[in-house]
């Protein structure tokens, strides 16, 4: 029972009497970590959430950002880690359902989904089962509701074998005057529409607010089951209701079910409510307690002025959407719940909605010293060709085609830059203009495990670079913090550091963190936390989608430029892990001022038409990024790594595989080389021209005139394309 003794005492004080069974369940649901953010609230205030674009910040179901004068983007991230560990298919599917309804609650039209998956080793049978189930769950649900899954992030690591992280995000667009921001008033009716309430997902948010049990199957009743057809109907009817202007306020019934939806809506507007539980449409006969805390999916709360009830009902009937009018709002701030004439609960909305924040103890564990270890005695450099192949075939790097081809990423006909082609997805607004938005999700669990502050900051920086690389201007981010048990100081410390890292760099990069989500208790039944992971989803503004940039080399003979300075930063790198099996060392330092300067330069170079292709340098370093560009463009290259602008380098593998931040690779059109260098000079950006693309079937790295690496491009393409499928389909 996640309510602590102190909390029960607090409830007695609030009510001035012994709580009823129903009231206790309501408090348990609402005061769960998942719904109330009680452990995280104080620290989350550190995040900069303001900016001139921000229309709705944290607090509502989803934030809204004014990306263009006449378009608002509503976007949010969510985790479904616990349900996905127990029932990967339904857990992941309902994660999609929930995040979409958050976007709908502001009256926006959902246009894209992202999935950020931190998964186990596909050769581990249990992890393999989880991977297939999760991807299939997202595929089946996302495809059926007609929202394209356009981007994401994937990581494979033994640390996630039994507890994967399933983070999903949804992007919606709305006209500024249609965003649902009106205020519910006393006398307004409360309608629950959508799926009938059943016994699934009972106290699911409370289940998500404790560690996984050893026998996870016992928690199966806490996992919700998805119904994408109903979700699709909700999407359709909400667009119609918004167009007709007959709904005042919308809220998702997510974690905490009916209790959370009613009490948060009431508390946020200084209202009370009267609820008649027997009016709710149900799948089976349920007790009042179950009705209050069931987390059955595809349900939404509508607030409707009594005079509009008929037109709302007409639309819902026409589209075969079930609904029930279950009560109304009052002005007394008290939520009264009746069941067949008997009062089963009477609680003050505000006290129920917002438990007292907890100040959790925080201590760095000894393990974190790994992230401070200097790498002064690395083994000698192995053969470069073998290293390149080994790093390229890391599952964290190879093509994710096996995953993204299972998602309909084309529906909606907005996806201009598609999965596998660019550093971020680009979607057009489809309003007759050339405008669009870029979206991307990023994290690096290894970085945040070794150094949560800098690791989380690097995730923000990588997201920033990915958005720039497709030719967009980064506007805002949301974050999902996946951490361990907040009751354990040495777990909570990671959470605290991740928040602080994001807060710091977001301020530096002037990227408001407009919303987010926290997921605690990501530990296995032995109490070992998974790699704490800060997932960032960002949106960028694209003024002209016809100039959206991809990463594939386009032409023979164009110049290859590296933007930024390369430092010997192999700590926490993919190279170190793949080649030497080491997960240690100081991770690459976040470099916000270089990010801003280099980002501005790349953005300019793209809009001036100087470049054919752009790719940011991230895990796997320079060598990997170059090969990815060659593989995708089916055009080889020859580069001289002696020409890379670097500092403090002692070994060549540091140039090839260092994961120094704030760097990009550009394919520069020959005729614009001079202009590009002048632009770099003017903006104070370090650019090194290291070679040219070659229409030959080889990739060549030299040092001065010595050939270090000469690999066959078709071979590299082949392993890049097929490795993931082989690992998952043939790995067990």
């Amino acid at each position, binding site marked *: 029972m996640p309510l602590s003794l102190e909390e029960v005492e607090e409830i007695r004080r609030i009510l001035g009497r012994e709580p009823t069974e129903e009231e206790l369940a309501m408090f348990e649901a609402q005061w769960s970590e998942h719904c109330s953010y009680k452990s995280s609230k104080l620290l989350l205030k550190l995040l900069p959430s303001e900016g001139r674009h921000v229309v709705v910040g944290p607090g509502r179901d989803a934030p809204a950002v004014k990306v263009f004068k006449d378009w608002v983007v509503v976007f949010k991230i969510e985790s479904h880690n616990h349900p996905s560990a127990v029932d990967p298919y339904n857990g992941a599917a309902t994660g999609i359902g929930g995040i979409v309804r958050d976007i709908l609650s502001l009256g926006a039209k959902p246009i894209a989904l992202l999935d950020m998956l931190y998964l186990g080793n596909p050769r581990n049978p249990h992890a393999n089962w989880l991977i297939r189930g999760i991807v*299939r769950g997202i*595929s*089946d649900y996302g*495809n*059926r*509701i*007609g929202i394209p899954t356009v981007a994401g992030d994937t990581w494979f690591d033994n640390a996630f074998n039994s507890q994967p992280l399933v983070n999903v995000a949804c992007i919606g667009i709305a006209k500024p005057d249609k965003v649902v921001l009106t205020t519910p008033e006393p006398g307004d009716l409360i309608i629950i529409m959508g799926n009938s309430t059943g016994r699934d997902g009972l106290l699911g948010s409370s289940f998500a607010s404790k560690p996984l049990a050893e026998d996870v199957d016992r928690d199966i009743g806490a996992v919700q089951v998805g*119904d*994408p*057809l109903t979700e*699709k*109907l909700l999407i359709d009817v909400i667009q119609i209701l918004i167009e007709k202007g007959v709904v005042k306020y919308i809220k998702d019934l997510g974690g905490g079910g009916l209790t959370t939806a009613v009490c948060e809506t009431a508390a946020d507007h200084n209202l009370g409510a009267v609820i008649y539980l027997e009016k709710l449409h149900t799948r089976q006969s349920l007790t009042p307690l179950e009705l209050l805390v069931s987390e059955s999916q595809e349900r939404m709360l509508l607030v409707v002025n009594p005079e509009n009830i008929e037109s709302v009902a007409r639309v819902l009937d*026409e*589209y*075969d959407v079930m609904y029930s009018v279950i009560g109304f709002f009052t002005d007394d701030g008290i939520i009264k719940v009746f069941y067949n004439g008997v009062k089963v609960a009477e609680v003050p909305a505000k006290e129920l909605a917002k438990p007292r924040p907890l100040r959790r103890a925080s201590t760095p564990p000894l393990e974190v010293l790994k992230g401070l270890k200097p790498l002064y005695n690395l083994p000698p450099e192995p053969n470069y060709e073998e290293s390149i192949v080994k790093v390229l075939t890391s599952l964290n790097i190879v093509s994710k085609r096996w995953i*993204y*081809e*299972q*998602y*309909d*990423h*084309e*529906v*909606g*006909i907005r*996806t*201009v830059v*598609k999965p596998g*082609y660019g550093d971020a997805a680009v979607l*057009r607004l*489809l309003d*007759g203009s050339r405008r669009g938005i870029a979206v991307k999700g990023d994290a690096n669990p290894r970085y945040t495990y070794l150094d949560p502050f800098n690791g989380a900051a690097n995730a923000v920086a990588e997201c920033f670079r990915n958005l720039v690389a497709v030719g967009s201007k980064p506007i805002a981010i949301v974050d999902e913090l996946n951490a361990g048990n907040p009751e354990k100081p040495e777990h909570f410390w990671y959470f605290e550091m991740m928040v602080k890292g994001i807060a710091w760099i977001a301020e530096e990069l002037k990227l408001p963190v407009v919303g987010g989500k926290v997921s605690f208790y990501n530990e296995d039944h032995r109490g070992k936390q998974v790699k704490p992971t800060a997932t960032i989803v960002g949106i960028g503004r694209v003024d002209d*989608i*016809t100039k959206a940039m*991809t990463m*594939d080399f386009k032409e023979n003979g164009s110049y290859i430029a590296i933007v930024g300075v390369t430092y010997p930063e192999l700590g926490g790198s993919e190279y170190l892990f793949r080649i030497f099996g080491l997960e240690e060392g100081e991770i690459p330092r976040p470099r916000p001022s270089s990010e801003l300067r280099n980002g501005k330069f790349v953005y300019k170079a793209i809009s001036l038409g100087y470049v054919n292709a752009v790719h940011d340098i991230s895990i796997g370093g320079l060598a990997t990024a170059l090969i990815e560009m060659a593989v995708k463009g089916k055009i080889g290259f020859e580069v001289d790594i002696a020409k890379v602008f670097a500092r403090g380098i002692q070994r060549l593998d540091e140039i090839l595989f260092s994961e120094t931040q704030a760097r990009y690779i550009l394919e520069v059109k020959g005729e614009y080389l001079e202009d590009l260098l002048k632009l770099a000079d003017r903006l104070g950006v370090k650019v090194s021209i290291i070679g040219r693309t070659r229409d030959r079937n080889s990739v060549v790295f030299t040092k001065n005139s010595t050939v270090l690496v000469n690999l066959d491009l078709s071979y590299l393409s082949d392993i890049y394309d097929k490795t993931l499928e082989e690992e998952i389909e043939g790995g067990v």
Partner: protein
Amino acid sequence: MVKVAVLKFPGTNCDEDVHHVLKNVFFVDSQIVWYKNFSLNGWDAIIIPGGFSYGDWLRAGAIAARTSAIEELINARDIGVPVLGICNGFQILVEAGLLPGALLPNESGRFVCRWVRTYVERPRGPWLSLTTEGYEIHMPVAHGEGRYYIDEENYQNILLKSPLIRYAKGDNPNGSVYDIAGVASEDGLILGLMPHPERSSEDLLPPRGFRPGGRIIFESLVYSLKRGW
């Protein structure tokens, strides 16, 4: 003025895409029609777009094929109204018996979303009137149940006498027999195909190496409705 109905069932999700292409790319008057309100009267052509009608319960397209809207549609053949079924629309037409064969789960067992090359054989009728034998069309597929199946006898006797769309060699994404991507009635009045022409009708959308060839299907319709086929 030409008017095209875009028929929408619960779970249809490409209705707005088809509507957009008709209206904004080809300037054709079109309307999304909710299945409950559908009747055959007054339409020059009918398109059943993709999606997951009734959530693909039972089998893809099976429930929609038994609605009154589709019963109406069966008369379309008699009065000569062109019908196009895309993806789930194709599945519905097959389930309703308006086109031969069956659509089975993909050979891989997985949903697949990918751009493919297809080509046309024996073009005939309003949907392919501007194409020629062997005409290449690039379009994306996005389906879990798109493996076309027909037995040898019906293939020889029916399909080889009708217009056909096949995946180019090596591009068959689902294990369809004879690489079949789309089939039509003998006169070409009714066409069903798994790939999405509406996703391949604008220059911006195809990835590198592909062309927006799907537009030829809508262009053919516009042309044919004016000049006959």
